[in-house]
């Protein structure tokens, strides 16, 4: 089509103007892609951290347990209850836990510990406990061996194969005491956890605390973190009010807040970026229309229909914007991958917050294809939208006034 050829030729008549437009679009695509890849990557990374953190996505307790974490607030671990939890869409795994405090002794050192009785396989599926093993072997539901966190082991001077004594209070005031061999050591990044956690099998814990069949917590693994709140409210409906359903956001509100400010900031920045590009493109279009108004008036005079001029001008902007969107998209791919492999390190407040939870203070980019495609499309649409300006000018074009000089 000769009009498209003319559009193409027109792009080269003022190379600087075309290059300015293209550069604006190019940088917009690259920056917005990197930005969204960063903010989504940070979110994904956070979720990954949380999942492999002790907390899990969602926890279910007896109503009131969170404020009063004692063995009197337990729930009966039954198959029907598990079944109804599993029936909520998004729930793919759950690990039952019996958590309580106890005094641990080794030689003449004593320490307070958090004893976690859990199903070894399910715990691993839900929170990836096995991957935190640094020495020895993992829990076995049949044996009465325990896993110690490294910090705690160090304080108690214990190693794999050593024995630990636990003394505490069981269900309904019963005495809870036992002697256990240490089968392995695990590492948590968060000192809070690393210095005081001990894992044993659920059966063993129920036995220790005289709490047969009872648990304090279900830890849930979901397949899509986006549906976190939906799944939670569904569970609330599904279960009676005897149970409390808490998301990790409710369990760790400050972390949630940090993520929110982070994504909020990047959205604002993204908005600014779009506005800037829009202004850049609009400026060049304004210049172009001033420069070409005589010529367009002449074309109209000699008999070119307005719709053809609109096709001409819109093809010009589509060509400019599309080409630079494509180049921007292609160039942002290696950049995003580079930042995925060499992630940005966080500093200051944010770094401290991350480390408090034992998370690595890095921002890896998300390399999902949708960022590249979406940002290119968004910027393309901005360009397309702005080409309504020349269209509007053509609609109002009058040959006599535009050819007056």
């Amino acid at each position, binding site marked *: 089509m*000769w009009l498209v050829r*003319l559009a193409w*030729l*027109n792009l*080269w*008549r003022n190379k600087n103007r075309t290059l300015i437009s293209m550069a604006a679009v190019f940088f917009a695509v690259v920056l917005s892609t990197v930005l969204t890849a960063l903010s989504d990557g940070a979110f994904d990374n956070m979720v990954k951290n949380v999942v492999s953190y002790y907390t899990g996505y969602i926890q279910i307790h007896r109503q009131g347990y969170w404020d009063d974490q004692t063995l009197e607030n337990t729930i009966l671990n039954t198959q029907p209850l598990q079944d109804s939890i599993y029936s909520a869409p998004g729930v793919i795994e759950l690990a039952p836990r019996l958590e309580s405090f106890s005094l641990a002794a080794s030689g003449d050192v004593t320490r307070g510990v958090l004893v976690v009785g859990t199903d070894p396989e399910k715990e691993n599926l839900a929170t990836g406990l096995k991957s935190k093993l640094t020495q020895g072997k993992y829990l076995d539901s049949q044996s009465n061996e325990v896993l110690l966190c490294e910090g705690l082991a160090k304080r108690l001077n214990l190693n794999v194969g050593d024995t630990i004594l636990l003394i505490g209070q069981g269900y309904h005031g019963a005495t809870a005491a036992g002697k256990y061999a240490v089968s392995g050591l695990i590492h948590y990044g968060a000192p809070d956890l690393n210095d005081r956690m001990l894992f044993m099998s659920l059966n063993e814990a129920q036995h220790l605390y005289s709490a047969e069949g009872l648990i304090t917590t279900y830890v849930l693994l979901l397949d899509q973190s986006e549906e976190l709140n939906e799944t939670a409210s569904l569970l609330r409906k599904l279960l009676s009010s005897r149970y409390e359903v808490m998301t990790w956001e409710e369990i760790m509100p400050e972390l949630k807040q940090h993520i929110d400010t982070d994504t909020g900031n990047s959205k604002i920045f993204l908005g600014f970026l779009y506005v800037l590009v829009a202004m850049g493109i609009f400026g060049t279009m304004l210049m172009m229309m001033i420069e070409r108004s*005589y*010529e367009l008036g*002449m*074309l*109209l*005079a*000699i*008999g*070119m*229909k*307005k719709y*053809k001029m609109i096709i001409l001008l819109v093809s010009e902007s589509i060509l400019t914007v599309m080409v630079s969107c494509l180049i921007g998209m292609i160039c942002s791919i290696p950049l995003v991958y580079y930042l995925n492999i060499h992630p940005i390190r966080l500093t200051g407040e944010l770094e401290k917050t991350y480390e408090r939870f034992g998370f690595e203070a890095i921002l890896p980019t998300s390399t999902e294809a949708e960022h590249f495609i979406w940002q290119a499309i968004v910027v393309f649409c901005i360009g397309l939208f702005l080409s309504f300006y020349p269209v509007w000018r053509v609609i109002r074009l009058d*040959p*006599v006034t535009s*050819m007056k000089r």
Partner: protein
Amino acid sequence: MNRSTVIDAHNVSKVYNPDTIPVYAVNNVHLHLERGEFTALVGPSGSGKTTLLNLIGGLDRPDSGEIIINGVDITKLSDNQLIDFRLHNIGFVFQSFNLIPVLTAKENVEMIMHLQRLSKGDRDTRVGQLFDEIQLSDKLNSRPSELSGGQQQRVAVARALASKPQFVLADEPTANLDTKSAFNLLDIMLKLNQEENITFLFSTHDQRVIERARRVITLVDGKIASDTAPVNVATTT
């Protein structure tokens, strides 16, 4: 020669600023043009030449009167119909900047035929003829920036003729040209007039151009002050 009416304008007026200080740019003009005329529109600056040509060319609308071209009252056409009417019936040559800078001479002329949806074969034959007539067959593939002002105006004439219009309107076509180029352009226009019976209506200030016109219409303050053949009709080449 086949004498028939191409332009028939009655009581045509155009008033600027009717509410404040009205300017009668064109004031109750009657104009009748036959096929094959070679007519100059003259008059002092501000006398309404451009305005009248714009009205006849359907670029502007009169405040009153009718303009009948080839039997059609163009004042009754819609904007869109007017664009099509211009494309098929009127050739335009402007004072300068007639050509699209990014297109070659040939493409500039071809554009009109693209707009008329002529086939490639038809376009090529016509382009060949036209460039012969304007004596620029060797400049087919030159860009406007590579042509002299006179050559550009000749290409503009070729473009005006590309659509086989009823007549060609030219507003001061030689105003930006040196004497030699002006004569050259005029010779070509005259030749086209004599050999192809092309009708020309052009405005000018240029005495050299006026001398060659067959008929001279003088406008003063938007009114036709005189309408005559020039005293010394030039013998054409």
